[in-house]
């Protein structure tokens, strides 16, 4: 997979997501059904369009957009695309590229911090646990005071185990993460 900054974006997306973005005919159905469109700086159909052009400026606009981080992965677009193009998978591929090239929108950093905190918890223990997830998220997002009132209420309901469960195969899990990261850089 040639996914350096000079590679054609449509090819990179095809390799990563198995989607041929050039087949999109811009009907706009993805945008019409997208629950997150109102929070995005590029609508889903614009994302598909910018991925088609081969223009370096469009590529840059896409990888630096907030929109790719706002996708909730609800799959409404994928479900409804008359060309069966899976825009959600395209956005997954664009997020990966954006992160790899250090182009994450400053407005998307909190969302990235949450995903990274989630995966860090899984990498070290084999499972997601709320305490390390929220702790790391606060640290990495800078959002120290968010949801302070929620924690005691969660505790009272037995919904906040303080000691994370660590699986026996945690070295296996670390190996899987390393192998997947190596792939990412290849």
């Amino acid at each position, binding site marked *: 997979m040639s996914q350096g900054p000079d590679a054609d974006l449509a090819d990179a997306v095809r390799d*990563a*997501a198995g989607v041929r973005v050039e087949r999109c005919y811009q009907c706009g159905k993805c945008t019409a059904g997208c*629950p*997150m469109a109102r*929070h995005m700086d590029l609508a889903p159909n614009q994302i598909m369009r910018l991925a088609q052009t081969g223009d370096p400026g469009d590529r840059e606009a896409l990888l630096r957009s907030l929109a790719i981080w*706002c996708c*909730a*992965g*609800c*799959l*409404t677009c*994928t*479900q409804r695309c008359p060309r069966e193009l899976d825009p959600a998978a395209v956005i*997954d*591929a664009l*997020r*990966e590229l954006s*992160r790899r090239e250090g182009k994450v929108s400053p407005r998307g950093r*909190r*969302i*990235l*911090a*949450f*995903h*990274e905190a*989630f*995966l860090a918890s*899984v990498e070290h223990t*084999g*499972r*997601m*646990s*709320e305490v390390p997830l*929220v702790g790391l*998220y606060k640290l990495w*997002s800078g*959002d120290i005071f*968010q*949801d302070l009132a*929620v924690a005691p*209420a*969660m505790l009272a*309901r*037995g*919904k*906040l*185990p303080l000691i994370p*469960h660590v*699986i026996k*195969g945690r070295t*296996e*899990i670390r*190996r*899987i*993460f390393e*192998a*997947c*990261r190596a*792939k*990412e850089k290849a």
Partner: protein
Amino acid sequence: MTPPRCPPPPRGGAGDIGYYPGCSLAGGAVELDLSIRALARVAGAELREIDDWNCCGATAAHSLNHDLAVALPFRALALAEAQGLGTVLAPCAACFSRLKGTLVRLGRDPGLAERAARLAGLPFQGKVRVVSINGFINGLLADGLAGTLTRPLPGLKAVPYYGCLLSRGEGINEGEDPESPSAMEGAIKAAGCSVLPWNFATECCGGGFSMSKTEAVMDLGGAVLSDAKAAGADLVVVGCPMCHSNLDMRRRGAMPVLYLSELLGLAAGLSPAALGLDRHFTDARTVCAGGRP
């Protein structure tokens, strides 16, 4: 109204049902774990937890690394197969979506199966069936649970909320119209409740953005609950821990939100505490009382 499509009963023959609780069921969604286990006990189904299961990677893995999004569910599936579990119940809709989606993609793409096996360092023949909360409960009902629901809740009007992960995605909603699923309806009626038509059955609640984009979750969850209210519902029935948290906790006080397993557990005569109903943020006592004030 089409009858629910019941998969073959998940017990008998193949032995125990493999249980993949998923991470939230030890924390934020503890009531889903309690109610699934309690309901399985009532129905005489044996759940055997997959030994040493790992997280499926959820939204985070597919957002950042597509290899990880396959390799993590792959390990869980491979463990189940190695432990002789032919059927795996994943009650969390997000886990179900990741496990089932991965299984379907592996079956379709031998190259992917080979790469996943290399990344996870484990063999996997694909001889595992993944069952959702809806499939599991419909199976139990068909298998005799329906006849033991001695405490129906006829005063209640419910709306089934499938959200994204129980309606869309490859292999998720086999044979059903993803825009208009019906897998929960038969079970809700079996619990004695009436099912109301509404507009938001498959709309998104904002999913994993609860902390990182709270305003979107407040908007979307609020719209779901407004439509439920407009439809005249007393409660929303869900199968997803993210939907539950976004509606019950983030929109605290709006309307009781119950897992399908909690509702069926009440109809089976189990106590609200045994099902974890006392752990909700939004008071569910009216539901426990069968709609009587």
